[in-house]
C-alpha cells in the first residue's frame, strides 16, 4: 500500500514545474556550477533514465533519509520536517489525551445517568462540538481567553529564554483543546452509546447479582468493555487530528508541520508538500497499527494474526 502511495507521490513530484535538479541538489552546490558540469550532473543523478528507474532511485534515497530540498528556502526537507515534528507531536498528543480522557469520562458518566439533565447537556455539547468549524472555535476562544481575559497567550510556542515545558504549557492549552474538540464530541457520543450497550449485557447483571459494588461493576466490567469500540474510533479519527492540525497550527501560529504545509501550498513548493503528505500517510498507518495492538490488549476475545 505504502509502495503505491510513494509511487503516486513520485508521480506528483515529476509534475513539478521546472528542473528536477533544483530540488535534488543543495542550492549551494547549484549556485556555482558551470553549464557543462550541470549536464554531467544530470547524467550522474540519473535524470535521463526512464521513469521507473528514476522512481526506484528516489525511493532508495528516501529510505536513507534523503528527501530532497525545499524549492523556496533551499533547506533540506528532512531538516525542515524534523525541526517541526516535535511541535506537531506535542500538540497532537496533548489534543489526543484531552479528547480521549474528557470524551470517554463524560460519555460514560452520561450513560450512567441516562435521561438526567447532565446527560442532555452532554449530548447537546456533543452535537455542537461536531458542528462548529474548529477554526471558528479557535477564533472565539482566542478572543475570550487571550484578548479579553488575558489568561492565555494567543499563539506562538516558544519565546527565546523561556523554553522549558512549563513555559510552553500555557501556549499549548488553547490549541490542544480546540484541536481535540471535534474528536472529544465524537468520543463522547460513542462512549455513551457503547457504555449503554455494555450495561445491558448479561454479564453485567451477573456481576450485580454476585453483589459486586456498583462502582466496580461500572468501571471494571462495564467501562473496560465499552472502551474497545472507543479506542477503534479514536484510531479512525487520528487522520482527522493530523488534518485538523493544519488549520489549527495556522490560527495559533504554532510552528509545526501543519503550518509549514500551509505555507508550502501557498508557495507551490511541491517537493515539500509531497514529502509532508507522505509522512502523514506513514503516521496514519503507524497509528492504525497501534490501535490494533491496543484493542487486542483491551479485549481478550480479539487475537492479533
Amino acid at each position, binding site marked *: 500500500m505504502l509502495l503505491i502511495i510513494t509511487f503516486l507521490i513520485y508521480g506528483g513530484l515529476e509534475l513539478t514545474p521546472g528542473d528536477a535538479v533544483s530540488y535534488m541538489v543543495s542550492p549551494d552546490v547549484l549556485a556555482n556550477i558551470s553549464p557543462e558540469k550541470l549536464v554531467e550532473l544530470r547524467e550522474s543523478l540519473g535524470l535521463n533514465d526512464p521513469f521507473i528507474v528514476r522512481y526506484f532511485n528516489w525511493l532508495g534515497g528516501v529510505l536513507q533519509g534523503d528527501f530532497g530540498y525545499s524549492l523556496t528556502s533551499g533547506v533540506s526537507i528532512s531538516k525542515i520536517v524534523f525541526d517541526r515534528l516535535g511541535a506537531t507531536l506535542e500538540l497532537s498528543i496533548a489534543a489526543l489525551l484531552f479528547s480521549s480522557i474528557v470524551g470517554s469520562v463524560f460519555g460514560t458518566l452520561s450513560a450512567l445517568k441516562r435521561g438526567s439533565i447532565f446527560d442532555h447537556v452532554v449530548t447537546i455539547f456533543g452535537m455542537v462540538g461536531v458542528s462548529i*468549524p474548529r477554526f471558528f472555535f479557535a*477564533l472565539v476562544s482566542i478572543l475570550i481567553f487571550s484578548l479579553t481575559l488575558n489568561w492565555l497567550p494567543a499563539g506562538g510556542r516558544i519565546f527565546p529564554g523561556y523554553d522549558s515545558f512549563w513555559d510552553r504549557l500555557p501556549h499549548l492549552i488553547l490549541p490542544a483543546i480546540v484541536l481535540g474538540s471535534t474528536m472529544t464530541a465524537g468520543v463522547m457520543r460513542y462512549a455513551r452509546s457503547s457504555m449503554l450497550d455494555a450495561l445491558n449485557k448479561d454479564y453485567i447483571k451477573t456481576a450485580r447479582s454476585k453483589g459486586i459494588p456498583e462502582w466496580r461493576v461500572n468501571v471494571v466490567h462495564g467501562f473496560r468493555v465499552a472502551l474497545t469500540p472507543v479506542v477503534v474510533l479514536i484510531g479512525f479519527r487520528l487522520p482527522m487530528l493530523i488534518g485538523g492540525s493544519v488549520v489549527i497550527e495556522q490560527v495559533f501560529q504554532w510552528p509545526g508541520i501543519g503550518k509549514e504545509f500551509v505555507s508550502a501550498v501557498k508557495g507551490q513548493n511541491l517537493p515539500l508538500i509531497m514529502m509532508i503528505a507522505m509522512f502523514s500517510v506513514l503516521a496514519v498507518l503507524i497509528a492504525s497499527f497501534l490501535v490494533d495492538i491496543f484493542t487486542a490488549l483491551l479485549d481478550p476475545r480479539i487475537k492479533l494474526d
Partner: protein
Amino acid sequence: MAKHRKSKLDKKMDEIKRKEEAGLLGGESYNRAINKFKNNHLALLGLILFSLILLTSIFAPLISPYKPGTIDVLNRLKAPSLSHVFGTDQLGRDVFTRVLFGGRISILVGLGSALGAAFIGVLIGSYAGYKGSWIDKIFLRISEMFMSFPRMILVLMLVSILGQSLWNLIIIFILTGWGSVYRMVRSQMLSIREEEYVQALRAFGLSDFVIAYKHMLPNAIAPILVNITLSTAMFILQETSLSFLGLGVPLNIATWGNILNVAQDLNVLRENWWIWLPVGLIISIFVFSINFIGDGLRDSTDPSQQG
C-alpha cells in the same frame, strides 16, 4: 347497552380497522419513516433552520439592497446599524450581503460535492458490490489509498497540483469524498446480494446492470441519503476552513470561509467582531441543522435504531 360503553382501547381499535378497510393505512415503510421524522423535534428544527438559511441565500439579491462586491471607502469598518445589519468590512462592503451571497457559494460547494461524490460512489459501489470479482478489488484498493491520507492534507495536496478555483475545489472534494460512499453502498449491496429475490432475478436471466441498479439499489437508498446530508455538512466545514486559510475558493468570490479569512488578523479579531462572529455562527447553525436532519433521517429509516 354494552355497545355504547366501549373502552378507549376498543374505540382506537375500531378506528384503525375502519382506516384499514378504507385503505388509508398503507403498509409502506416510507410513510412510517416520514411520521417518525415528523415526531423528531430536533430534526424538524434542523429542517426549518436549514430551509431558512438556504432560502435567504437563494433569494439574496431580493433581500439585500447592496451588492457583495461594491466597495464603499467612506463607510469602512462600520459597526452594525440599521442600514448595515452586520456592519461593513475593511473595504466598506456590507457584511450581511456578503454573508447571504457567500452562503450561495458555500452551500453550492457543500451540496454539489456531496451529490457528486454520492453519484460516483453509488455508480461504482452498486455494480462492484454486486459483481464482486476484480472490479471490486481494484476500486476497494483505490478507495483505501485515498482514505489513508488525512483528508485535509490530501485536499491541500490536490489544490496545489490542480490550482485554486471554485470548480477545482468541487472536483477535489468529489475525488476525496467518493470513497466513503462507495464503501458504504458496497457493503449494503453485499448483504442485499444474498436475498432470495436477487437470486430469482438472476435465474430469470436479467442483466447484471438491471439487477444492480434497478432492483437492488432502491433498497439501499436510505443510508445513501443519510450519507449525502452528513457529507454536505462536512464539505461545508472543509470549504470554510480552506477558504479561511486562503487556499479554498479564490478570495474575490464571497464565501462563508472567505469572509472569515480576515479574522486571521488579531486586530480585526479584537476590534471588528461583526465581520467574523455572525458568519461563524451562521456556519455553525447551518452545519448543526444539517447534522440534526441527517441524524433524524438515520433514526427514522434504520429499523435497528427503534425508539
